[in-house]
């Protein structure tokens, strides 16, 4: 059983890729397998846990729910695109400083959901932060330090 492969173009972390993909391949499959961007995690493959969250044209999406062909021509940010060299994004820095990381499996998705929020709202309320992170499950932290980290990053980014 052979399936037709499709050529798509993606711009991921400001790098352009032209790749052929199976029609059934999800954006998550392509990011992890074809592009080797393993920072995007597969927690459930069903859109329930948020571990695969990436930013697509400014909005946070579950990469496991999006077919790769639907991402054709889109701009995507993954966790690998946030830092430059040793310089962390303020959100990454805040997650480290607040100790908002335990097992770390939800961390990339959490940070990207938070980034999509802060890109849109510079000074979000606690409710807005919680709402923005409500699609990202974490089983380790009770979310306390994660919320604090986002508040800290918002403050740091606001003062720049």
């Amino acid at each position: 059983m052979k399936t037709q492969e499709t050529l798509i173009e993606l711009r991921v972390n400001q790098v352009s890729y032209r790749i052929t993909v199976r029609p059934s391949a999800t954006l998550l499959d392509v990011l992890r397998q074809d592009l080797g961007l393993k920072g995007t995690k597969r927690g459930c493959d069903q859109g329930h846990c948020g571990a695969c969250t990436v930013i697509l044209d400014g909005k946070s999406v579950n990469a496991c729910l999006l077919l790769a062909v639907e991402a054709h021509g889109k701009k995507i940010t993954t966790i690998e695109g946030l830092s430059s060299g040793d310089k962390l994004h303020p959100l990454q820095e805040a997650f480290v400083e607040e100790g908002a990381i335990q097992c770390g499996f939800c961390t990339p998705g959490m940070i990207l959901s938070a980034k999509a929020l802060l890109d849109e709202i510079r000074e979000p309320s606690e409710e807005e932060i919680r709402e923005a992170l409500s699609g990202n499950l974490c089983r380790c932290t009770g979310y306390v330090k994660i919320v604090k980290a986002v508040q800290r990053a918002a403050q740091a980014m606001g003062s720049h």
Partner: protein
Amino acid sequence: MESKGPFKAVGKSIPRHESFAKVTGQARYTDDLDLPGMVYGSILRSPYAHARVLHIDPSEAEKVDGVLAILLPEDVPQRPFNCAGNPPSPLLIKDEKVLTDHPLYEGDRIAAVAALTPEACQEALDRLVVEFEPLPAVFEIEDALKKEAPLLHPEIAQTNIFKKMEARKGEVEKGFAESEYVFEGEYHTPDVQHVAMEPASCICHYASDGTLIVWSNTQTPFQDRRLLAELLDLPESRVRVIKPATGGGFGARQQLHNQHVGALLSKRVRRPVKIINTREEEMVATTVRHGSFCHLKVGVDKEGRLKAFHAKVYLNGGAYCTHSPIVLAAQTRKFQYRIPHYLYEGYAVYTNGPVAGAMRGYGNPQLTFARERMMDKIAKELGFDPLQFRMRNHLEVGETIPAHTFPLRSCAIKECVEGGEEIRKRIEDREGTRKGKEGITEAWGIAFACHTSGPSNNDGMSSCLILVNDDGSVNLAIGSADIGQGCETTFSQLVAEELGIDLKAVAVTAADTLHVPYDLGTFASGQIYVGGNAVQQAAQDVKEKVKVALADQFSVDRGEVRYENGHFKIPTKEGSAMLLPFREAIAKISFGRKGATIIGRSSFKAEESPLPFAVCWAKVAVDHSSKTVEVRHIIEAVDVGTAINPEIVRGQVEGGIGMGLGFAMMEQIEFDRRAEKPSSSDLLHYRIPTVLDMPEIHVYIAKGSYEPTGPFGAKSVGELPVVPVAAAIANAVAKATGEEIDSLPLSKNFVFKRLWQSQES
């Protein structure tokens, strides 16, 4: 182990050392690894909770492009084993097979396939033709105990009770006869799932030289190695288990998951085989927390002192033994009140439900829910304040809890109560407590808990090496498995403290059985107490060896070099002394004619397993008209001995509260009665708390606790904080409603209302 500080590295909240890798996406979890020649594996699991496999026809599956091997039950060793990642024990009944033609639960492994792609694996599984004869199944403890119930393991037991455990002190009947009041109650808790965010993952490579290498998320690399060596008839020296970054465990990774299947597939195809569970497999085919039924009988005198306690506990073990007997044994040692007469009777029961195994708390959350509900009931009936009633009966330093062999050497329960009460009063001053206004009643509930530091049968054992480099930096090699709790970071603090060196000078290699010596693994909250003691002893061994090398270097008697206040002190001929900090001492001895390489080593066997303590408060708001419960605040005060890294401890407590909230309010593996199998097969049908569900969380860490047998006074924290939460919430809801609450989750009888509302517009 005597120094109580002041400390330089201990007690500091440094960020965990893998932070940078985890926030940048560079941390490598098992599924992130791709090996040359690697192929994929998948497992055909039983769709029935109980069935007989009559026939399997693999011919169509074999024709799928890319399929390399198909394993059926007859292709693999049929010797039964026990998947529990525990040190060997005769209690661990071997009743499970790698692949079976007699599946005993939905998810039981029947066949396996290796193929070039995950898609080919799936297609091959779809084309395996299996003829089943469905058989009658039982799911509830009560049903499994009936005479007519199908017998799950006639080869093990002639009823579905496969283990009975008893612990006693005094004569409980005499105690009841002497009691003014006797109370009884029955309590139920459901099966719940760990829901670690990373699915069970392994890559197994059985190489042509007869060596097996396994990369997997595991809590117990050395236990896995032993089990795999036994299953594959290999010496342990030829089995190497490596734990990459691991996305949570909570007990779920204290069982072999698919490593045996992966190893056997790889042995067949001689290529690395990767098996990653789907979330559905995680939900139905890994392990769960034992569902429980508990009957309590408690006798009290008229001063409100406990006289007699009798617990009769039934645990739903699911289809296989795994940890159950040890979970029962652990339950016997969690009674933190003074009690002259005590009887614990525990029964592990086979059912065709999900297999129960290790989960954070290991039997303790179930029993604590029952006991702490009962304590509230007694306090209410006799007119005592629930807090005072507990404190009146609580054990103190020097006393021994039932079934333990050593007395308490540290117990800061009073400071926990005071610290938590102060927080509670601040909240009350700020917001008050609504009493029926607009149909809403608020109330506080409280619960106490204790746990263990290392296996409570004192089975804890760990060892490590500290390799000293010529620049004075050191490499710690330890078997411990950090699954997200941060123990590698904490160990580096212990090393830095003991040697008086900078934290940055300590690097940790862990959890690779080829390169590090034995450690029991991450379970029983044992890493800091058991592993930490091993680390401190190895660091002390380093210092002893440095003293000897310095003595030789400077030609003084070996006994004359001392270590004081962070310096090695070497007497000089002039009668004074040369003082060298660690780094300078190493510089003096590293090279040259009398050069020495320093390797510290340790082998620590725990003789005790000290108890950490927790007190938990919950404030709930109940809307009587709609029967909704909103959990507004959780306060948890903990005595963990010295908090080596307070923010890591705080994070553990906060996470434990989150897990406890799920256990209290919403989590339960649901059964579809008609289909005769669990329906909680994904994270929509099995909800864990989201960030919108969480109450305001307040943590208090007791400062006045020092465990003399622990490294720098530390006990443990990992499991403790989850234990009292459900009981505290249930006590609050019972108080607010006046209803007797004897089962979990509360969402069976109430509507759980999120504290944080989604934005309306």
